[in-house]
Structure formats: structure tokens, C-alpha cells
């Protein structure tokens, strides 16, 4: 109820000291703060972000079937001057090899997103199971798992990823990991944080009455986990996965920048951005288009993730 009204007590007796509350003015300011207004509607930012993500997702996943997108490794167009920038036939311009950048961005997005999805799924399955087990069974299991998770979390992820990729992919002097290796390394890194989140959510739910109720009806632990806990864990995790996708895109980009992500003919956004660096002065568009697309995608994912997350936690509170 409105914070401007006094403490509603059933019998408003005079003579009882009123609660030491802030003056109405101050609480109005508090109410106007973002937490509340966000709760109310999904603003235009939300919808713009959704539209963008739909576009990106659609274009990248449908890429092989789209006529205006060249396949990776398609024959380059040498007739255009790389320094020219966007034009009618090449919406994002061409790079110094004559490849159409728009197609590259779309294909690169496909790879980047596929890697991200794969990592999210693998990470959630493994991290999720670990987290649920820890949060549900508590006790010694939890302590051991948590200790390991904490250790993993305590380390700068990128360094570990580099080390892993280096070891698994090196074949002498050149390092060009394959997709599975990249996905594998990033997934391993995602297990720890995801396990922690899942554990937290599971902890919150395991205490609820409906779990106890199921138990008294004779349900086994597995059954409870499957039918009671899991359906409740999935929604917040799904929301969280949006943020994770963004993080993985960035991480993969970082690897690509170091030349430690998947190689040609696969493109990723990170690789495209990096490839444009030598030509930054003459043909900045080579870098800026992929960078712009990546930026907008991450922005949209973060934004939607934030909003959905705040909606979720509020609803939790109402329960």
C-alpha cells in the first residue's frame, strides 16, 4: 500500500508512539526509484531488444537458406574497392579479400550463437545437475560440491580457458582449436557459476511446503527433484541463460581475438572484429559492422535478462 499512509494497525490508538518513519516526502522519492517503475511495464526498450534478437536469431539460423547471404568461403567479389564501405550490393561493404561483410557477419553470428547455445546447454545440464544435487541434499554433499565450485570460481576464467585450449588444441606451432574444443573449454568454465546459481534457487525451493507435502506422500527423492524442484528451477534459469549467452559471446570473442577460437572457414564475430584491425585506418567498416552487431546483441540480451530477472524476483517475494 502507499507508503504515505501511516502504519495500518487494526486499532489506530492515539498515544502509542508512531513508527520512526521517514517523512512522506522521502518515501515518495524512494518509490519513484527504478525498482518499482520497472515492475510495472515492459518498456519500449524491452520490445526493441526483442525485435533485434528475433532479427539476429532469424538471420543467423536461416542463413544457409537466405539468398542474399553468401555461404562461408563463397567466391569473393573483387570488383569492389575494400575501402569503399557499404553499398547497394554489399550492405556492410567488403573486406580486403573481397568477401561480403554482411554475409560474414551473418555467418559469424551463426557460429558465435551456436557456440553460445551449446555452451549454455552443456553448462546448464552439468552445472544445473550439480547445483540441484548440492542444494537439495545439503549436508556433506553440499559442502564438498560447494568447496569445489568455489575453487573453480576463484580463478580468472580466461586464463584457465587459454590453458585448456592450448593444451588440447596445440599440434606443434599453430593453435587452431576445433569447435568442440572451444565449446568444451567454455562449458567447463560455465559449470561453476551455473552450479552456484542453481544451488541457490534449489535451496530456496527445497524448503517450501509443496516439497514436504510431496515427501509425505511417499515420493522418492528423484521424483521430487524431477517433478517438484526442476519445473521451478527452470524458469529462473532460463531467464539467467540470456545473460549467460551474452557472456559466452563475449568470451568466445576474446578467444578469437587471441587467435584461439575456431578457424576459417568458420567466422565468429570476435574473429571478424579482429580481422579488421589491420585495416582500421582505411576501411573501418570491416571492424565496425561486426562490432556494432555484437554490441547490440549483447545489449539486448543484457537488457531483457535484467528486466525479466527483476520481474521474477518480485514475484518470488509475493509468494
Amino acid at each position, binding site marked *: 500500500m*502507499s507508503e*504515505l*499512509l*501511516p*502504519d*495500518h494497525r487494526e*486499532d*489506530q*490508538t*492515539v*498515544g502509542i*508512539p*508512531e*513508527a*520512526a*518513519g521517514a*517523512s*512522506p*516526502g*522521502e518515501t*515518495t*522519492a524512494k*518509490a*519513484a526509484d527504478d525498482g518499482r517503475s520497472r515492475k510495472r511495464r515492459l518498456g519500449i526498450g524491452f520490445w526493441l531488444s526483442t525485435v533485434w534478437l528475433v532479427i539476429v536469431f532469424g538471420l543467423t539460423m536461416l542463413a544457409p537458406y537466405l539468398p542474399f547471404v553468401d555461404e562461408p568461403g563463397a567466391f569473393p567479389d573483387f570488383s569492389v574497392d575494400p575501402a569503399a564501405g557499404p553499398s547497394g550490393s554489399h550492405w556492410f561493404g567488403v573486406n580486403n579479400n573481397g568477401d561480403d561483410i554482411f554475409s560474414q557477419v551473418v555467418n559469424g553470428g551463426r557460429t558465435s550463437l551456436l557456440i553460445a547455445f551449446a555452451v549454455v546447454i552443456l553448462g546448464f545440464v552439468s552445472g544445473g545437475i550439480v547445483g540441484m544435487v548440492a542444494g537439495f541434499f545439503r549436508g556433506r554433499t553440499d559442502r564438498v560440491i560447494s568447496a569445489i565450485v568455489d575453487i573453480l570460481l576463484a580463478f580468472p576464467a580466461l586464463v584457465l580457458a587459454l590453458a585448456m585450449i592450448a593444451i588440447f588444441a596445440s599440434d606443434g606451432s599453430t593453435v587452431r582449436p576445433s569447435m568442440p574444443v572451444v565449446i568444451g573449454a567454455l562449458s567447463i568454465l560455465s559449470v561453476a557459476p551455473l552450479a552456484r546459481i542453481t544451488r541457490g534457487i534449489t535451496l530456496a525451493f527445497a524448503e517450501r511446503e509443496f516439497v514436504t507435502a510431496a515427501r509425505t506422500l511417499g515420493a522418492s527423492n528423484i521424483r521430487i527433484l524431477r517433478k517438484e524442484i526442476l519445473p521451478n528451477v527452470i524458469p529462473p534459469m532460463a531467464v539467467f541463460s540470456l545473460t549467460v549467452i551474452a557472456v559466452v559471446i563475449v568470451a568466445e570473442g576474446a578467444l578469437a581475438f587471441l587467435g584461439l577460437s575456431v578457424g576459417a572457414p568458420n567466422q565468429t564475430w570476435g574473429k571478424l572484429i579482429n580481422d579488421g584491425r589491420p585495416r582500421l585506418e582505411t576501411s573501418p567498416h570491416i571492424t565496425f559492422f561486426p562490432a556494432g552487431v555484437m554490441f547490440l546483441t549483447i545489449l539486448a540480451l543484457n537488457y531483457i535478462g535484467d528486466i525479466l530477472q527483476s520481474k521474477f524476483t518480485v514475484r518470488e517475494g509475493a509468494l
Partner: protein
Amino acid sequence: MARRIVAGERSVEAPLLEVEDLSTHFRTPRGRVRAVDGVSFTLERGRTLGIVGESGSGKTVLSRSIMGLLPRTNVERTGTIRYEGTDISEYSQAEMREVWGPEMAMIFQDPMTSLNPVMKIGKQITESLRFHLDMPKGEANDLAVSLLRSVGIPEPAKRVKEYPHQLSGGMRQRVVIAIALACGPKLLFADEPTTALDVTVQAQILNLLDAQQRERFMAMVLVTHDLGVVAGRAHDIAVMYAGKIVEKASAKTLFASMRMPYTEALLESIPKLEYASHTRLASIPGRPPDLANPPKGCNFAPRCRYAQERCLEEEPELQAGADTGHVFACHYPVGTEAGAEALARNLARGFTPAQDEAEVSITQPAGSGA
């Protein structure tokens, strides 16, 4: 910054503070909340005005409105405020900053939160001294020590270097008072100064305020929910309900011949020594109105045992009472024929027009039965 005289025509004959038709409305998602709705009063130098009301009556917002300490957004303050004859209603924050401290000061309800926890007490006092009065450090420190002494804090030289959490609640409130009085203001707003304190300490603090006020010939606005607090200490008392002043009189008149049923109810709710033990404490049933949607007619009608149909329709205007300075707003005032009849009618029926039979039956005035 040296002390600057508030520019303008400062008149010594004009009352210290004149408030005319002051309203403070908050724009909230639920609508416009009329926290203060057309309040007027005058305060002379050296006098104490007690403002009494329940929580939600708007009394805290009132004092902050006069001081100008409201938040910037979604707040509308209208009306006129004159200090020593000068209209300060349109003063900017920068201009008010010169008023706060040397002219007007305020003490808040909770001494625990009124003091900066990470700043030494002495510094909190000398801050305003050095800013407003341009005092050099040494002099300011000495003054701080003597201020602490004058508010009754033992070993002030030692306390000056301490932090708030090292003091008890009563001590802290004394420090708060010292800070407020440091620059010698002519007007002090005390917003529930004793509510957060132990009962034993309350009287001490109130006495301290009294003493300081007399010594400095300072005017004071004492805001409280407790009529008992203002009983011996205020020259004039204003009773607030739902953002309006519903009765105002000199203290003597108020207690002797109150007219507002609300005031009567307030008085009754204070337990008295003469009651037999286990006497049920009288309380005012119901709740204050929703300030965003005030009821038609008198705001108090839903809870008033004198209420009649007229009260539900027509808002009573402030009318003058027999004694000078006594105003009240009621259609069927206490202690008048009309009022007595109204009460009798309600008692006979068992309920007022604001309630129906299913609801709580009206309570008898205290002293007329158990």
C-alpha cells in the same frame, strides 16, 4: 562564509513566523496526496506552538514544508511563509541555506539516525559554526564544548572527540539539540523530539528544550502525537488532522474548553492516574483517511461520535471560539448545545451516520462509565 543577513525588509514588529494557507501536495502514482492542506498560523518570538496529531496527520510534513526541506520532485508547495516579515516562500535552496542554522533549525525524531555515525560529535557541531559564522577552528571547538555543557552533557571536552555510537540515546538527543542551537537560531522545529527515547529521559529532554528556549528567547514549534507532551510546555496548541488544523487555541483554553471532538478523543486516550486498574484504554476507532482520496465532508466524521449527516456532506470551516485566538472546525462542537444533542442522538441509536449497525458501536466519553 560570513553570516549574511537575510536581505529584505526585516521587521521587528512583524511576528516571527507567519504561515498562510500552506499546502503541500505530493504527486504519487496513486494520485495527489494532500499531506498538508491549507494550514495557517502565526508564531511570535519566544513562544512555543505545539502541533499535535496522529501519524499521518501531516504534522511532520508541515514542519518540513515550512523549513523548505521537502524533496524536489513531485512535490507542490503553495501558500505563503513569512519570516520576520519577509516572504520566504519563493526562496531558492541556496537562499534557504543561509536561513537554516542561524535563523531556523530543526531536530528530528530519532537521535540514532540523526547523527552521522562516522563523524566525531565535535565536528558535527563545529561544521555549521565554521560555515555560517566563519569561526576559526579553535574558537569553534571551544564553543562546541560549551554548547555540550549547556545541554547537560557531562565531560564535554571528552565527548567532543567521540562518535555517536559511544553515547546513549538521551545523550545523543542532547547532542542533536546542541547542533541545532549552535548558530543561535530564532526558531526551532522539534519534530517528535522525545518519541524515540525512554520515558525517563523524555521529561529531561523536554525540560532542556524549555530551558534553552527561555534563555535564548527562541520560538519553538513542538510537533508531537502526545497531548501530554505539550500540556505544560506550549503556549499555544494546534491540533492537526488529515492535513488540516482542526483546532487551535492557547493551551489553557484548549484544555479548558475544547471544541473539536477529535481533540476530546485525543485527551481521553491519555490514561489517567485516577482510572481504576484494568480500565480499558480508550482509543479512537478506525483509521485516518486516505490522503489521496479524502472523504467528502469532514475528514474526521467517519470516526467521530458526534457525527451527523451534515458532517458527511459539508466540510466544516474554521470558526472563532469565545476566547481570542481559539479557532476550530466543527458542525457539532463539544461543549455546545448542538454538540450535546448530536451526541445524545448517536448514543440512542447506537451508531453514527458514518457507520452502520453492523460496525463498532460508539464509545462513551470517559468518566461516564467503565
